[in-house]
């Protein structure tokens, strides 16, 4: 009896949380655009984009320890789906196709690179971005005769709303994977892949599918962001910096907690917006310094640091809340 009331109380609390969350999301989607300026909407879309990239990067690379430098490839595939199909299909379908195209590429890459461990996987994904960039550039100049393409324009509110939807779906998926037995299985792959295989985890299937799921969100984000830029070429679409930034944001934010990557991405996206136009070199310099310091002194990122402080403040009693 006691157990039952406890359960229903927990359920009510969960329901309350879900309702509050839904109200906040709907408010952000439909009420906020009426009050926010265009600049604020653009800023929020950019911050959401980085959170999507970082959280979906952490979805695969966080627990498994495989450092993927492919986000730029998945994002770029999304951009090119928008550039080539943006005029032919309704916007939501384009976004979906962009995500699916990236997921398809991820499936292919994942299936090909199963044998590669550690540093080899990182340099493979790094080479992948550059290979797609140069093949595409060659193709465009040789067969279409132009270097870049124009992307169909979409109004700022719609971009913002779709970006918000992708963000919510990304965070929800990341949360569900982390909470499920798949999250545990991924963690065990990161710790000892052979052991994970021996206790009956289908390592291959799990790695490839989570890699593809994370690529889906990156591709969808790329598709919708492309409509903001109006003109893209292979160098803009497959910019390697978009592979490096999610890694830094994740390391800086901390991968031990689901909100760590969100925090890291939000801070850096805001800093970028503030500094990139006026002091681009100082911004990138600070970026490099923080990355180096984080790798050296903050193995668990900001989230780890905050937890340590909380543990100290409560005398260790409230460590897991």
């Amino acid at each position, binding site marked *: 009896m006691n157990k039952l009331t406890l359960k229903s109380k927990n359920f009510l609390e969960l329901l309350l949380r879900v309702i509050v969350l839904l109200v906040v999301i709907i408010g952000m989607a439909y009420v906020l655009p009426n009050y926010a300026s265009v600049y604020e909407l653009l800023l929020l879309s950019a911050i959401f984009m980085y959170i999507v990239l970082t959280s979906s990067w952490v979805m695969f690379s966080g627990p498994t*320890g495989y*450092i993927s430098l492919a986000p730029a490839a998945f994002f770029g595939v999304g951009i090119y789906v928008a550039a080539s199909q943006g005029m032919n299909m309704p916007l939501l379908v384009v976004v979906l196709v962009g995500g699916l195209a990236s997921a398809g590429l991820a499936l292919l890459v994942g299936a*090909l*690179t199963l*044998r*590669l*461990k*550690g*540093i*080899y996987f*990182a*340099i*493979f994904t*790094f*080479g*992948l971005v*550059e*290979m797609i960039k*140069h*093949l595409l*550039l*060659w193709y465009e*100049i*040789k067969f279409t005769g132009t270097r870049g393409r124009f992307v169909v324009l979409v109004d700022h509110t719609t971009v913002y709303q779709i970006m918000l939807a992708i963000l919510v779906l990304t965070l929800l998926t990341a949360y569900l994977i982390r909470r499920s037995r798949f999250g545990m299985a991924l963690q065990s792959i990161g710790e000892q892949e052979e052991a994970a295989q021996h206790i009956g985890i289908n390592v291959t299937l799990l790695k490839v599918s989570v890699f593809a799921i994370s690529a889906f969100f990156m591709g969808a984000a790329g598709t919708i962001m492309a409509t903001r830029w109006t003109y893209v070429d292979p160098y803009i679409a497959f910019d*390697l910096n978009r592979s*490096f930034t999610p*890694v*830094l944001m994740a*390391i800086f934010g901390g991968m031990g907690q689901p909100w760590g990557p969100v925090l890291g991405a939000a801070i850096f996206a805001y800093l970028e917006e503030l500094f990139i136009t006026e002091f681009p*070199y*100082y911004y*990138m*310099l600070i*970026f*490099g*310094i*923080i*990355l*180096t*310091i984080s*790798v*050296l002194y903050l*193995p668990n990122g900001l989230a780890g640091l905050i937890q340590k402080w909380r543990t100290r403040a409560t005398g260790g009693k409230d460590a897991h809340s």
Partner: protein
Amino acid sequence: MIVTFLDIVIAGLLLGGLYALISMGLSLQYGVARVLNISHGEFIMLGGLTTWMLYTVFDINPLLCLAICGPIAFILGYGIHRTIFKRLLATSPSPGIFESNSMLASFGLLFIIQNLAQLSWGPEIRGYSYLRVPVDLGGALFGANRLITLGFALLIGIAFYIFLTKTRMGKAIRAAAQDPSTAGLLGVNINRVLALCFGLGAAMAACAGMLVSMTYPVHTIMGMEYTVIAIIVVVLGGLGSIPGSFIGGFILGLIGSIVTFFEPGLALAAYYIIFILLLLLKPTGLMGK
């Protein structure tokens, strides 16, 4: 026909010499110090821009710059290993984690060096003209500066090989590459050897940068392009094998020259295709262990 063939082969060898020199430094840093140094190209950029500055502003002969850039880059690399990578090595629980962490730290270094260079030199593309006199090689014409580049690449490569095989320090380096903990037990000062290797890698990059600046224009964001080529060559030759990357450099140079002859737009794409195929089919490379 013969002249075209000679043209392609010599151009390939000239390019290959440069690639070999760039890659040997990275190979040393990865093979011994276990740092896949993504900021390798930034040392090439520093060498190139310093040479440009010394030549155009102070009128110092580019070849003399080798004696200036090399030692400075060595001290810089040595210091970086002593401060950053030594600490990472001590705090990383396993060699695999150290490789990942050190690669990420070198990304940080890349941004730091590149943007400090941007702040001091600006984004302009620079170049100077030195020894650009044509030399006739069996009917094909090549610039004297490019031949000097090849000569220096061979010279540095061979000198380095002799250093590794004949000297006590070289022996210590090879021991550390094979088994760092046993080498340490046998009285090799591991931290010093690793820092030395990292410094030597940086010095070779700076020398390569000086040679690059004699033939190609230099600018502050050129580093990544060369880092990528160095990584491809190092994988081609076998991660960690120094003779492998020396030979791999020439092979890639020849491939680049052949592809450029038939389809100039595809040269870079061809490098990546080879790279990806290698990783998939034979990740140990030509001479890897």
